[in-house]
């Protein structure tokens, strides 16, 4: 995904591309090498690291990450190659000749131990007060290499102030080992570019533009850097203490909504293989922790689809029937707060293309403190709304000043999957063993359409299921409602469906080929925006963009580690859950229908719904003052 050459990053940090033969069985396609005296045969151009992995030989790594291009800077993966004077880094070295590799000679072991000793000598932090305790690559290495003392001393005073300026990301550079995984994530994977190495020599550190606090530079809060940091140097801004306080306060009515992605991933925090959803178990656990109500964010995801779908149809009508030239098409989705901040900074002149619909998280907050408060006869001032999200950007989103349409702060706290797992553990609960239970009413049921929001392409798929049916009166013409062109992890996907035999209200769409684009990761968003700029999207109607690679299931608040393999499994869990549900279309959600009957009586995109469920954006621009 990030593997293609990116002109913005130094060649040294781009993967060495060897022309690999198409057919690896052909002569020259494979090379016989020796790893630790064992003869093996590998495809031409395989790195030593890959070759070792294939053959169950463990080579430690720190700066290497499967999502990122190579760096070769930590040097922990060094191995001996016969005939070479110096050790070679396994992660960078492409095999192009029949070499002999030794991965555990005295020289190799000593060098690795020295590297660990050196890193530890400058690593200011204590494992027991660190959120990465037991999930830290540095700690693991120290254990693996039997570090029992600090050979080269240990730093006793911090060198850097902890940067807590951002609502989403906390940076403690005292724990940084300069692997630059965050730098490569931010520049290359996300193309936001707010982190780089500054200064040189012993003064080198990772910093922002002029070392400003993170909140003052252009960070989109996506948290992707956190997910790829091997240590506790980067973490999300954790509100769990405040949440405990709210739970412990008898006057407060604490409500939590849970998004689908955390449910499909939280098991990983309890040692379960990726790819299992724990929705029911989580409901029980949250109740036991002390949340008064547990709701399903998918409910507002359905609501989002109704609002956003209606908005799209309205735009199309204005454009096609009223010939209103000011209407902006394609409509872009707006449920990823990382993407919203991205477009506000990098493409402020295109904000009108965004759907005005709020994200499901914020809709939920607004509905909870109005409709729910009214139904349950609770003073909204006493309601505390918590959102369990896969995302660090949601923390920033719920603190946006405009997110108070209920008259209160709509969502009080955004909580990540990792932080939730920590709270559950703190409460003495082992999640996988909890009994299953249901969400609470009045938002008990949600459709599978809302569920698949968690994967890239999900919003598009959900929207198509609804829009197509509204317009034609028939179900989308895909087997089992699985709109497969929306699925998968390709960076940018394009597809279309033709609207035929439309119902009377939508006759103006007869024969229209609805074209849509799905992109994930802001590097791909950049490509889509450049296409828009060049006028290449004139015939496209709807664009879904998620800031995080893989969509929300790869969000910056999800369990660490992350890789495409793990994200694929999480996606499978989500799609499997969708298929297992009866209710799979947002517009059929009975509770959503009820909301429009009882509360938003003027229907989608009406004035009231606009007040509560829609928002506006800020032209932020790129200038850092």
């Amino acid at each position: 995904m990030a593997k293609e050459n990116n002109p913005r990053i130094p060649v040294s940090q781009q993967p060495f591309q060897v022309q690999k033969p198409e057919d690896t069985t052909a002569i020259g396609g494979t090379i016989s090498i020796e790893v630790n005296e064992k003869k093996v045969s590998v495809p031409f151009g395989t790195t030593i690291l890959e070759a070792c992995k294939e053959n169950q030989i463990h080579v430690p790594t720190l700066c290497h990450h499967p999502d990122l291009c190579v760096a070769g800077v930590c040097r922990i993966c060094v191995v001996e190659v016969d005939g070479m004077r110096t050790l070679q880094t396994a992660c960078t070295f492409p095999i192009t000749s029949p070499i002999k590799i030794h991965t555990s000679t005295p020289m190799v072991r000593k060098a690795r131990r020295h590297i660990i000793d050196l890193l530890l000598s400058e690593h200011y932090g204590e494992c027991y007060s660190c959120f990465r305790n037991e999930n830290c690559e540095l700690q693991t290495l120290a254990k693996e290499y039997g570090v029992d003392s600090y050979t080269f001393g240990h730093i006793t005073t911090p060198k850097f102030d902890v940067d807590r300026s951002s609502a989403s990301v906390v940076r403690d550079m005292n724990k940084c080992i300069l692997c630059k995984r965050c730098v490569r994530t931010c520049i290359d994977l996300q193309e936001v570019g707010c982190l780089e190495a500054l200064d040189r020599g012993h003064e080198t550190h990772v910093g922002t533009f002029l070392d400003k606090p993170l909140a003052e530079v252009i960070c989109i809060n996506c948290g992707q850097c956190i997910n790829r940091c091997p240590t506790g140097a980067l973490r999300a801004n954790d509100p769990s203490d405040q949440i405990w306080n709210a739970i412990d306060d008898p006057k407060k009515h604490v409500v939590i909504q849970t998004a689908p992605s955390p449910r499909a991933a939280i098991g990983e925090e309890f040692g379960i293989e990726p790819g299992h959803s724990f929705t029911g178990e989580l409901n029980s656990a949250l109740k036991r922790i002390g949340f008064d109500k547990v709701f399903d964010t998918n409910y507002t995801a359905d609501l989002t689809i109704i609002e956003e779908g209606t908005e799209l149809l309205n735009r199309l009508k204005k454009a096609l029937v009223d010939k209103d030239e000011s209407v902006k098409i394609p409509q872009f989705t707006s449920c990823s707060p990382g993407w919203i901040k991205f477009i506000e900074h990098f493409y402020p002149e295109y904000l009108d293309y965004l759907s005005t619909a709020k994200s499901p998280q914020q809709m939920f907050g607004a509905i909870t403190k109005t409709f729910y408060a009214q139904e349950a006869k609770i003073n909204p001032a006493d309601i505390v709304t918590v959102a369990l999200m896969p995302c660090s950007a949601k923390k920033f989103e719920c603190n946006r000043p405009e997110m108070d349409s209920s008259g209160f702060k709509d969502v009080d706290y955004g909580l990540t999957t990792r932080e939730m797992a920590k709270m559950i553990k703190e409460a003495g609960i082992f999640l996988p063993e909890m009994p299953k239970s249901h969400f609470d009413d009045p938002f008990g049921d949600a459709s599978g359409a809302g569920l698949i929001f968690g994967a890239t392409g999900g919003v598009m798929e959900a929207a198509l299921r609804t829009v197509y049916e509204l317009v034609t009166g028939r179900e989308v013409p895909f087997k089992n409602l699985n709109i497969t062109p929306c699925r998968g992890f390709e960076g940018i996907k394009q597809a279309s469906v033709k609207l035929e035999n439309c119902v009377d209200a939508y006759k103006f769409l007869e024969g229209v080929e609805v074209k849509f684009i799905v992109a994930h990761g802001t590097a791909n968003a950049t490509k889509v925006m450049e296409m828009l700029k060049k006028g290449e999207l004139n015939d496209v109607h709807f664009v879904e963009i998620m800031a995080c690679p893989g969509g929300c299931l790869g969000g910056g608040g999800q369990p660490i580690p992350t890789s495409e393999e793990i994200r694929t499994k999480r996606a499978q869990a989500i799609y499997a859950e969708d298929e297992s549900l009866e209710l799979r279309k947002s517009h059929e959600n009975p509770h959503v229908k009820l909301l429009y009957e009882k509360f938003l009586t003027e229907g989608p995109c009406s004035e009231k719904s606009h007040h509560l469920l829609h928002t506006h954006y800020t032209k932020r621009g790129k200038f850092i003052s």
Partner: protein
Amino acid sequence: MENNLDNNKKRTGPVLFSKYTRGEGIKKALAMPREDVLFELKSSGLKGRGGAGFPTSTKWMLVAASTASKKFIVCNADEGEPGTFKDRVLLMEYPELVFDGMVIAGYTIGAKTGIVYLRGEYEYLLLQLEEYLMKMRDDNLLGKNILSKEGFDFDISIRLGSGAYVCGEETALIESLEGHRGEPRNRPPYPVNTGYLGFPTVVNNVETLASVPHIMQKGGDWFRLIGTDKSTGSKLLSISGDCEKPGVYEIPWGTTITELLQFVGAQNTKAVQVGGASGICIPKRNFDRHLAYEDIATGGSIIIFNESRDMLHVLQNFMEFFVEESCGQCTPCRIGNTKLLEGVKMIRSGEFTFSYINALKDLGKSMQVASKCGLGQSSPNAFISILENFKDEIFFHNGYGRK
């Protein structure tokens, strides 16, 4: 206000500091097919003068054989190794040798563009070099169809560094040319394969290139007669420190340190640092060793220390240099050098244990094999060799520990 510097050219020799008429080497080369130029170069046995000593003909051949659409020849004039200044003298006095060498390289490898990476400290040379290039263009030694050789177009531009020693490392230099931090790249791929802007690139030291025109004129065999079997030709040495006649000397390879000390007028010499901060420190008992690729290879920096010098002070100066000049990307060099420097300071203050100093030497050995580039691979050399060779002075002079 004028620069006040002189070139201190103290000893001339047959190759570099000898008569050469501008363009002669180019003429000779252009009259030959490329293979013959390479052959001549190969038979001369010329090896890189920048420090690593890689056979120049092989390097050129690798790029000449490539079918890439663009190729580059880069002249490494970053001369940052403490104690070296011979490239400056070549550029000031013999620009014709350097530039003609580049033109010949361009012809041989099939490059249309040559770039000189001139260290920022030498900015004062820029104007005169630019003027010289203009003259070459006027005389059709640069430009299109050089010396009426149909289809041979070549030009040279000069780019400045901005104060970073590590940019002398060839891949860091390329990164710097591309507008990045001067951080050395992973190898493979080597610059001859993926160099400037991703194209095959030859990076050669100023002196290497300056040797080429003479080889073209007088032949590889002539060159091979100078020096030793494995180290052919002559070498420029930059000599500084405790001696009467510091300056630049052209010597044939194979000269011993004793001989050297004689003609530079050094007395009471205790030690000689060969190869600059990243080289090794030779104690008196080894002064009969030879300067040659097969014995003590060097880029040409010779710093002489007499009996009055405090070797620990010297070592500290070197380690401070590396701590500052490391690019900082890889662990062994970024943190390792500070640990070595700390060790030196501990010795100075007397607060050390021998076991810790030995642990540091051990660390130095790991740095030599695990660092990403030559800087970190060679920075422990001074630490190890000075502490080994001057044990008595450093550790026992004032009893355990110094004041």
